[in-house]
């Protein structure tokens, strides 16, 4: 009889979960799929760069100088005769790393902060969100510039500084999510069953709050990458010998009259990545039916 009951349930036709529905919707969105494909491709290349880059990172060919795209150097070379493709590949590692690491920092702080404020509520919530409000009013862009000027151009500091800005929105989204969900009757039902708070958070709150967080995370990565490129362009971000797309664009802009490819290809790499992330983010927003995140 037991086995029979288990079999009956196991053989019942499976329902379609919201995640599966979302995936089906995402699959129909060509732009989002394109974004996902391009992004995966770039990430793969970034991971494999040390092994697949056509030239060494520091290889120079001063005799060659800046040369347009050719069979040997697909994207041309810079003024020191360095292969541009190689430069872009190594630069991409830094740009993507900044994007993902700083976003993770923001995600970690923001989600924790927002979840606690939203779940505990009352005075704790008021105090925590008041702090977020005050930080929100600070002109952070200028602060980051200041920070980079004062403490030197340090990659770790860059991660932290950018992460420190972006977590605010994340905290707000997470808090409003948790607050909305907490008032939902299924959470009340879970309380009335007698579930401990930790299980309620794990089983009922987090899976339902995940959609907006995923969407907003996807949309935060491009804005973080932009911030890094912006700082690097001003000479306040990544420093040689390291490089990033922002830095390459900055060099390219200096010599664009004579060697336009030095501007165009790094610019293309950055723009394409930003496009992909934004398309994917918008696609996820539609697929997960998330309203209001990221706009």
């Amino acid at each position, binding site marked *: 009889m037991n086995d029979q009951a288990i079999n009956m349930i196991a053989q019942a036709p499976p329902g379609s979960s919201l995640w599966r529905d979302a995936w089906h919707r995402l699959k129909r969105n060509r732009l989002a799929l394109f974004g996902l494909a391009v992004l995966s491709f770039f990430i793969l290349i970034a991971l494999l760069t040390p092994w697949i880059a056509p030239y060494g990172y520091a290889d120079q060919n001063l005799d060659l100088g800046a040369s347009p795209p050719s069979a040997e150097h697909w994207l041309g070379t810079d003024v020191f005769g360095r292969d541009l493709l190689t430069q872009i590949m190594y630069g991409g590692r830094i740009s993507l790393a900044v994007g993902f690491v700083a976003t993770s920092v923001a995600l970690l702080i923001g989600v924790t902060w927002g979840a606690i404020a939203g779940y505990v509520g009352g005075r704790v919530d008021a105090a925590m969100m008041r702090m977020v409000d005050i930080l929100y009013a*600070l*002109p952070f862009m200028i602060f980051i*510039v*200041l920070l980079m000027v004062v403490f*030197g151009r340090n990659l770790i500091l860059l991660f932290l500084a950018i992460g420190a800005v972006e977590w605010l929105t994340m905290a707000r989204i997470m808090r409003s999510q948790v607050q909305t969900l907490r008032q939902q009757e299924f959470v009340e039902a879970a309380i009335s069953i007698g579930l401990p708070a930790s299980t309620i958070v794990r089983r009922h709150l987090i899976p339902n709050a995940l959609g907006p967080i995923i969407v907003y995370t996807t949309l935060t990565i491009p804005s973080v990458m932009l911030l890094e490129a912006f700082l690097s362009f*001003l000479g306040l971000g990544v420093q040689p010998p390291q490089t990033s797309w922002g830095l390459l664009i900055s060099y390219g802009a200096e010599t664009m009259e004579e060697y336009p490819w030095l501007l165009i290809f790094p610019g293309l790499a950055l*723009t394409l990545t930003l496009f992909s992330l934004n398309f994917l983010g918008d696609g996820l927003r539609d697929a997960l039916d998330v309203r209001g995140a990221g*706009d």
Partner: protein
Amino acid sequence: MWRFIGIRLLQAIPVIIAVVTVTFFLVRVAPGGPFDGEKAVMPEVKAALEAQYRLDQPMLQQYAAYMGDLARGDLGPSFKYPGRSVNELIAAGLPVTAELGLYALLVAVIIGGLAGVIASLKPNTAQDYIPMSAAMIGICMPSFLLGPILLLVFGIYLEWLPVSGWGDIPGDKILPAITLGSTYAAYIARLSRAGMLEVLNQDYIRTARAKGLPEWQIVVKHGLRGGMIPVVAFLGPAFAGVLAGSFVVETIFQIPGLGRFYVQAAFNRDYTMILGTTVFLSTLIVLFNLLSDILAAWMNPRLRAQFGKR
């Protein structure tokens, strides 16, 4: 309403004080004094300089003195340009940056708002896709990339527009304004589209249709006000973004504005200049945020009424 403004103003004051304090101590604890870079400065000259800039006093005293100066609107002397005060330098750069920022915001609001509203009228048709794709390009094409490209195409290849300067040759303000405004035009387009779509799906729009009003009246009279509130609330952050963006745009187009001063000061480690500009810009941003908040709240009768009672 006045109470709302009062409360917001009171809230802005601690923010500004916090900005000044943090900036002040950040700059003071920075490794390397401002005159360390000069190799050939004699000790007594250096001491004299430090005395002039109050660097020989204890830090808290410096802070108190600085706050005192600030209260009188005095941002102190520049480290790098002896004899010139930060006030003078800001006064020189501000008009240019203000004009550039104003044009950029105008570009952003007019083009972005129009594109967003047009797109929202026929969602998921060409009328929606075309402006929204343009907006996506605007978001993914940052000013430091768009600037050089516009410069290359319209300035160098086509030779239609001047490549640098501000107010010297007719038309030299066009490219910088577009470059600086484009990103925000894109954001505003997306915001106003989302806002309008939200409003146009409301029941009261159906009521307006049932009254027999023509479509344009429905959009203008009943739709715009609610749909534009998010855009108005975004003006504050957009202003902050435009100011920061002016660092880049003024560098690219060699415009003698505040942004370029700031970047130069950063490289020169002109601490009083950095400090002064940061304080000035931050205050400006906080105030502008306040303004756009108040405006957005004022547009919502429910909020307006809530704070109307004294």
